[in-house]
């Protein structure tokens, strides 16, 4: 009966409850969406393995490193394997068709990234084709590319027309793995550079360094950088995660703003629900006084108010959370090319849940205090 009192009370002022509920649903949706955007921003760095270091030129990323460093890095104790990786920056038909391409050491690179799943025979085929390439599932789906298809790219950093043949399509281990990029043989890149610009040959963007124990990352990074101290090109080594975050850092203010807005949304809905509860409680002063006259403790009335507020916010929250899935899926289809990973995380669901619980509790505090304090005789006199 208590539950009935709470639930049926919610829908007494039908329009008001409905509007509040709609507000809650929208707020929870917006909150989830904004947090998903923030998540998406960090997605690259979240999937980064602690067992991978990135070594680059200490001056900046636009400066390269000589490839012979590779052997010296590999010789350091604790390092398992090293892949070269150069950003290619080619254009497919039109600059707006952007997707990342890297020239890497194969198959080493794929050994370093066990989260890329691909049948071994495709890697075999790749190793046999100098101008072959491997593409991620998302990329393949975007352009409808299949194995054997030719992908012509217009070089920007490396001039000329480059044509690659798809030899493998890799899947991500889970949907947190980015699969909208392309890899091809670093040796092929270097070969063509050698013909056109001999002076630019044998230089690489970064080394991807595999290490045996992730907790030695700091120590090994220091060891690598010490190895090239005072040489012509000094290095800067950091974990892959730190490396990714240094890109994100440039946009940190935007992320901070989005995060702030997501909390502002919650504060606004708190004001809306608090107002609804205040109005509700004001209308029921006489009812609460009657309950108290009948012998119900003030705590009972307080529980009714909290119960009603929480039921309302949980209802709106549940609807908002359920709707978040299709809404975010729809959004993904629009922003998929900007954010390779755009999904509702479990953490975001918990945040949404936590937010509605907090809103439900806070919104009820003042009305509950007011109702507990009001004297029975004054309450009974009150005509709503």
């Amino acid at each position: 009966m208590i539950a009935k009192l709470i639930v049926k009370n919610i829908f007494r002022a039908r329009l008001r409850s409905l509007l509040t509920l709609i507000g809650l649903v929208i707020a929870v949706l917006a909150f989830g969406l904004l947090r998903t955007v923030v998540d998406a921003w960090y997605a690259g760095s979240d999937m980064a393995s602690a067992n991978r270091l990135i070594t680059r030129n200490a001056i900046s990323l636009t400066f390269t490193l000589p490839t012979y460093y590779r052997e010296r890095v590999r010789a350091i104790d604790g390092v398992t394997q090293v892949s070269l990786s150069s950003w290619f920056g080619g254009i497919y038909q039109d600059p707006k068709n952007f997707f990342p391409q890297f020239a890497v050491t194969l198959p080493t690179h794929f050994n370093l990234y066990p989260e890329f799943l691909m049948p071994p025979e495709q890697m075999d085929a790749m190793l046999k084709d100098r101008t072959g390439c491997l593409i991620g599932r998302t990329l393949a789906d975007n352009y409808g590319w299949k194995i054997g298809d030719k992908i012509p790219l217009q070089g920007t950093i490396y001039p000329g027309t480059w044509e690659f043949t798809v030899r493998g399509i890799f899947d991500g281990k889970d949907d947190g793995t980015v699969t909208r990029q392309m890899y091809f043989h670093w040796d092929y890149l270097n070969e063509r550079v050698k013909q056109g610009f001999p002076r630019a040959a044998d230089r690489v963007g970064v080394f991807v360094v595999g290490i045996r124990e992730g907790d030695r990352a700091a120590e090994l990074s220091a060891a690598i950088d010490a190895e090239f101290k005072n040489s012509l090109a000094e290095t800067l080594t950091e974990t892959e995660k730190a490396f990714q975050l240094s890109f994100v850092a440039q946009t940190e203010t935007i992320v901070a703003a989005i995060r702030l807005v997501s909390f502002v949304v919650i504060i606004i809905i708190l004001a809306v629900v608090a107002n609804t509860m205040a109005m509700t409680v004001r209308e029921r002063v006489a009812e609460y006084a009657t309950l108290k006259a009948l012998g119900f403790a003030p705590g009972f009335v307080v529980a009714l108010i909290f119960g009603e507020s929480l039921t309302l916010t949980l209802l709106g929250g549940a609807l908002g959370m359920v709707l978040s899935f299709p809404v975010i899926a729809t959004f993904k289809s629009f922003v998929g090319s900007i954010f390779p990973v755009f999904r509702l995380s479990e953490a975001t669901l918990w945040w949404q849940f936590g937010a509605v619980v907090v809103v439900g509790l806070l919104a009820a505090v003042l009305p509950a205090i007011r109702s507990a304090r009001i004297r029975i005789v004054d309450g009974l006199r009150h005509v709503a």
Partner: protein
Amino acid sequence: MSDTPRSDAAVAGDAALSPPPIVRIRNLSKHYVRGDQAVPVLTDITLDIPEGDFLALMGPSGSGKSTLLNLIAGIDKPSGGELTVGGLNIAQLSEAELADWRAANIGFIFQFYNLMPVLTAFENVELPLMLTDLSRSDRRERVELALSLVGLADRMKHYPNELSGGQQQRVAIARAIITDPTLIVADEPTGDLDKKSAADVLALLQQLNREMGKTIIMVTHDPGAVRAARHVTHLEKGELLGTEVVSGE
């Protein structure tokens, strides 16, 4: 109304011979503080109400009838004087103790019925029993009994807004008697009703008093309503003018 009212002394004399009164009031006063001014509402009220009485409290609007009733019912606190109900000095109880005491001893009937609109007639009557440890089936039995007593056995599943004013007040009466309280207090129970419904409600209260021995205190300014009572006492500007026996007693 009585043509030959008995004197106060006669009533007091009756009380002296009979068992102790259920409500004993001595020099009771009540004032409200508004700003830094004390507004007196009741001054020096002395009154005994014997067990089994049906007392009508009459007086002009603002004379303090509701205030006196609220004090007796333990939903308001006196400013001075003595007030014992059923031998208990209720002025000394804490808020929580008072709440428990009311749940066990007082049945409330209000002018505007004060039913919970979201609960059915059955649930409204059952409400006070939620504070007891009666089993579900015991509660059901009692609620059904109370509702048939007020003639609404066939309306148990109806919500207040599906009932007439008279019917709602009868549900409220069932709610007031469901815990078998020591005292039933009614503040203008017919104030919002048409003549026919008012008569039904009064007949019901009279039946509760005559047949079941319930002690009832009823505030009213309807002279017709007074006829249902055994005694009537008049209040004016916070002072009692005296108690009379209602004719037909």
